């Protein structure tokens, strides 16, 4: 290839500011993020820089007196005889100027070898297997020179073209007039590499068992699969590939108006997993076929004037799923009246969303500005329903949901600079999602169990309205010291259109938030900031049972079907009429309503299982997203520029949520972190950095193992250590009130991250650049549980035998340890050529029981094993590539 020719044609280009990456794992990646010219500029005249600055370069002509611009300040006249006027002729004569003012094009090609394969290592980087991979990247620029009359620019890029993370972009523009662009981007996500299943047909949506499949020797117990079945388990790679196709266009109608439009078609294909129960609590983890697409379009007409600006925009998103169901064979038992041959899962239905938005702003003055926006959108979903079950093959009378949701939002913000030292901001936001979907009653068998079905549930189309008001003031106390105070109030209304009672625990929550921040420059070298915020969220008439009532589980036995008929007759199938309460407007706290269809008194001494119960079943449960809450947060930051070469940063964040009215459910959560960063510049060419982060996330959750009181009599409660009962009858009498059944879990996530890196430029007479990074990440999840539960001893009577209280113990600690080392050496043979060598080592060790808990003979009895393993690997990768610049 004629180097000079290409150089002549392309070096005149000035690339767009939005650059591409030439590399992920290879050399150009590092190059892409730094100024490729800075080194040359500085290194080219290390000894004469001061002189050159004073005398300037030899130039074609002294700079003329600059033009006076209407929108720019009038510049002073240039000093005659010393000005460097950068022009094409100069750059032709001066390679250093050329280097700075003309953007380079780059092509990189090479090979990368990976020592071992592991799905987790290759999860996102396109390197899932051992062996060689091609390195391929390019970034080619063209168009007019910066100082020509040609404003066109074009650019083609390709990145990681030898990997499953490849992407390509193209752009052509006449800057200030129009622009066209396209893009292709793909990524394969590896989800598991050790998953096994006996199902045949993975990748499709009809999964059958091998013809010789034998059912568990103990009914419904997957730990008792015959040996012949174990051979049927085959590995299936779980991965999905996303491919994005982008296209865009923008056009300036004139100096004030611009039209823009962009489209994206995205495909997602592959296999994931999905848990699929069949008849009660028996589940298989199926290979879930994924074949979906999403089309999105953005179009806008934008206006920018001297004082006003605005935009009218449309956004559309259309989702399509090629699969509407997943059918699978029952692995637990032979077909019978109570055991179907097949089960059927639904998939994510097709949906659409279309939205129009108007936004804009007006600058009353430099000190007072108003910004606002408003939007309206609608979301549809009307995919045909599947049958209730594979055994009844009935389809709901509605046929499909005909679901529709309206989205409305309004935002207004006013900012005002009251004085040189005081800035004020006030804003209001309104955001509503109103679900217009009709409410109906659905009667269905649970998890494809045979028969007509005895579950009755109403759908609860959820709606939400958020209104937020905000006031902020930022006051400069003294030079370098400022104080910011803010107040925010947020109310959230949640409701369902068409349900017979409220479908959310609290129809309205109201949160008041106060914030105070200080930012100060204590010395020339030391700056700090401190901030504190407190908020309180109240929940009006919080009731943990209303959501259950609205989506109500009907009578459980066939003998109660007449009740269901009466519900249908009244048009309101719910507990209200069943228990003799009014159809609507039931008074708080809805006495006589219980979960589990098991009205039982909470008060000791009241006969259980009677309709005269006097309390709520799970009194005190607070669902954390609507429950009353106190929140405190604190943040601090310290920046210390110790010397010109050494910079230190220390910051900390603390947040504590207290759900102060919740006896059960999430009690509190705490999240705090400490960060330390430092950098040291040994010289212009050598620098190093170090960081450390510690994060602690802590969640406290409370519960009670209390269930239905199955005993209608009373029995003497023998006592064991801790005051808990020791026989089944007693346990059943007091199940709802037994304090021994209360439990508490304290889950902690502790994360330590250390990073260390160094960069050395200009070794071997300025030709060799080195870059090294080391990273360590230790994450630990602990789950400490107190409380306990009862269990009968093997062989004992399950109704009258002794019961034992088993204190809870901590769950296994889940550790993830990651080490990572990367070294990059780039040798610049000359300005046109470079050779890049990369080496990386990565090690991960995990004992996550999400995976290792799924081994044969070790799974829960009601879940088919998958034999998945937690990732453990140590992988080296070496890459060598040649880079050509022109």
């Amino acid at each position, binding site marked *: 290839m004629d180097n000079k020719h290409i150089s002549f044609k392309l070096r005149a280009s000035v*690339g767009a*500011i939005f650059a591409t*990456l030439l590399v992920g794992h290879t050399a150009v990646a590092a190059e*892409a*993020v730094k100024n*490729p010219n800075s080194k040359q500029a500085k290194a080219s*005249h290390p000894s004469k820089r001061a002189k050159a600055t004073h005398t300037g*370069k030899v130039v074609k002509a002294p*700079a003329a007196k*600059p033009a006076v611009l209407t929108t720019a300040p*009038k510049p*002073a006249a240039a*000093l005659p005889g010393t*000005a*460097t006027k*950068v022009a094409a002729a100069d750059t032709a004569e001066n390679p250093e*100027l050329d280097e700075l*003012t*003309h*953007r380079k094009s780059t092509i990189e090609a090479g090979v990368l070898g990976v020592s071992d394969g592991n799905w987790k290592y290759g999860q*996102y980087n396109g390197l899932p297997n051992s062996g060689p991979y091609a390195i391929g990247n390019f970034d080619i620029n063209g168009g007019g020179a910066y100082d*020509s009359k040609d404003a066109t620019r074009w650019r083609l890029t390709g990145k990681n073209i030898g990997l499953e993370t490849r992407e390509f972009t193209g752009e052509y523009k006449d800057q200030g007039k129009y622009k066209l662009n396209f893009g292709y981007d793909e990524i394969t996500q590896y989800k598991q590499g050790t998953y096994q299943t006996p199902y045949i047909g993975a990748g499709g949506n009809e999964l059958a068992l091998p013809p010789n499949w034998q059912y568990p020797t103990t009914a419904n117990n997957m730990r008792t699969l015959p040996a012949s079945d174990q051979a049927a388990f085959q590995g299936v790679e779980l991965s999905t590939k996303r491919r994005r196709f982008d296209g865009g266009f923008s056009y300036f109608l004139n100096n004030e108006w611009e039209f823009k439009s962009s489209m994206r078609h995205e495909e997602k294909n592959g296999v994931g997993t999905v848990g699929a*129960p069949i008849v009660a609590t028996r589940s298989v*983890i199926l290979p879930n076929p994924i074949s*979906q697409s*999403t089309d*999105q379009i953005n179009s806008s007409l934008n206006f*920018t004037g001297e004082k006003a600006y605005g935009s009218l925009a449309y956004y559309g998103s259309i989702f399509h799923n090629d699969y509407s169901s997943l059918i699978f064979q029952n692995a637990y038992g032979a077909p019978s009246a109570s055991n179907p041959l097949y089960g059927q899962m*639904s998939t994510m239905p097709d949906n659409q969303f279309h939205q129009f938005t108007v936004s804009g702003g007006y600058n009353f003055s430099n000190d007072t*500005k108003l910004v606002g926006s408003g939007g309206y959108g609608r979301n549809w979903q009307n995919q045909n*329903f599947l049958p*209730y079950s594979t055994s009844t093959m009935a389809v*709901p009378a509605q046929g499909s949901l005909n679901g529709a949701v309206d989205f409305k939002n309004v*935002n207004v913000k006013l900012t005002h600079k009251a004085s040189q030292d005081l800035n004020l*901001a006030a*804003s209001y*936001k309104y*955001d509503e999602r109103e679900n217009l979907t009709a409410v109906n009653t*659905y009667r269905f068998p*649970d998890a494809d169990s045979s028969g007509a079905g005895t579950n009755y549930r109403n*759908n*609860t189309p959820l709606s939400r309205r958020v209104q937020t008001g905000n006031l902020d003031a930022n006051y400069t106390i003294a030079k370098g010291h400022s104080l*910011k105070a803010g107040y925010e109030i947020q109310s959230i209304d949640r409701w369902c259109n068409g349900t017979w009672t409220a479908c959310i625990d609290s129809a309205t929550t109201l949160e008041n938030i106060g914030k105070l921040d200080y930012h100060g420059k204590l010395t020339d070298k030391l700056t700090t900031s401190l901030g504190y915020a407190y908020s309180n969220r109240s929940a009006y008439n919080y009731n943990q049972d209303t959501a259950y009532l609205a989506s109500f589980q009907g009578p459980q036995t066939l003998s109660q079907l007449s009740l269901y008929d009466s519900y249908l007759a009244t048009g309101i199938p719910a507990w209200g009429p069943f228990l003799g309460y009014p159809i609507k407007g039931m008074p708080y706290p809805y006495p006589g309503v219980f979960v589990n269809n098991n009205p039982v008194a909470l008060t000791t001494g009241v006969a259980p299982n009677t309709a005269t119960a006097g309390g709520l079943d799970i009194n005190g*449960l607070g669902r954390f997203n609507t429950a009353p809450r106190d929140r405190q947060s604190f943040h601090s930051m310290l920046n210390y520029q110790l010397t*010109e070469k050494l910079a230190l940063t220390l910051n900390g964040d603390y947040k504590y949520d207290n759900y102060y009215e919740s006896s059960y459910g999430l009690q509190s959560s705490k999240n705090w972190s400490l960060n330390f960063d430092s950098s040291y510049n040994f010289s212009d060419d050598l620098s190093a950095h170090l960081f450390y*982060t510690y994060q602690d996330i802590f969640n406290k959750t409370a519960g009670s193992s209390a269930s239905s009181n199955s005993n209608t009599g009373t029995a003497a409660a023998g006592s064991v250590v801790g005051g808990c009962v020791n026989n089944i009858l007693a346990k059943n009498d007091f199940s709802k009130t037994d304090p021994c059944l209360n*439990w508490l879990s304290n*889950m902690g*996530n502790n994360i330590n*991250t250390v990073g260390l890196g160094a960069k050395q430029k200009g070794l071997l007479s300025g030709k060799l650049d080195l870059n090294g990074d080391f990273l360590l990440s230790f994450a630990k999840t602990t789950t400490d*549980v107190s409380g306990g*539960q009862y*269990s*009968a001893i093997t062989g004992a009577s399950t109704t009258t035998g002794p019961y*034992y209280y088993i204190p809870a113990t901590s*769950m296994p600690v889940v550790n993830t340890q990651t080490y990572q080392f990367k070294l990059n050496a780039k040798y610049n043979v000359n300005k046109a050529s470079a050779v890049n060598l990369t080496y990386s080592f990565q090690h991960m060790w995990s004992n996550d029981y*999400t995976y290792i*808990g799924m081994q044969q003979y070790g*799974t829960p009895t009601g*879940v088919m094993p998958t034999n998945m393993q937690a990732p453990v690997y140590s992988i080296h990768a070496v890459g060598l590539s040649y880079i050509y610049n022109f």
Partner: protein
Amino acid sequence: MLFTTAHAENATTEVVGKSLAKPVADANERDAVCTRCHDENDSKPILSIYQTPHGNRADARTPSCQQCHGQSDAHLKGDPNQKGRAAPDIVYGTKTKDYEPTLPATQNDKCIGCHQSGLRTHWSGSQHEMQGVVCSNCHTAHAPKDKVLERISQPDVCFTCHQTQRSETHLFSTHPILAGKTACAECHNPHGSTGPKMLIKQSTNETCYTCHAEKRGPFLWEHSPVFDDCTNCHTPHGSNNSPLLKQRVPWLCQECHNADHASTVDSGSNLINGNVTTVDGKQTFNNLSPRAQANGLACLSCHSMIHGSNHPAGAKFNR
């Protein structure tokens, strides 16, 4: 905007108005006032701005040096042979070696003056603006490749201040942020927005649906915390609990569910080979360990359609 890897495309094309006459020749003359000293030997590669859209002289809107840095008379009149030359009228940045940086509002006004629409519509009064962040904290206008506009290097810019998020991206379960496939700006608009946490859309969920449209529904059976806010259960930057969960299941579920079989305590006593010890000593118990709800996918082994189900039998999110 949605279909850009960062804000790159919009960063330049949204500049409209302010036409200047005689673009090319005059522009070079104007810049020569500065480039006579700030030439190719300058310690900073000032001239590389000509590789950027700000240096495209055929575009009449392209600013001169002084349009951004001010007329800077005192600076220009200083004796270049003497130390102590006065500062330019506008000195960008917050950490500058030679001169005191200009007030943030003044710096930002210069940029916003041309770039106030589009993605910057909500800049005024935004969190970053109120915290004193200046454009040049993130952007390097003179560099041919601005780190913050590069998908793979953008997180490094954001992590300069958001260090806890940097740590989280190295955890077991993450988005492909470090792989350069999900840039911060694909979810956040650092210039301000109408959404929480400066998200690009009005709500958290609408932001998530730009990549996860399958979870938008509406579903026949909606799960209350899901429609409310994805971050009720997920933490987007990284977690030790896959997939991006704030807590492990079943305890995550038990934050709200405390009845029926969700009420049972799940502890190490339930696990196979765990210590099944009663207060009276070790015993052998009926099928007690491990419970399905505490192992493997736990609750999600059955309630797998937890984001919503369109199956008429899916009220319990198990179909």
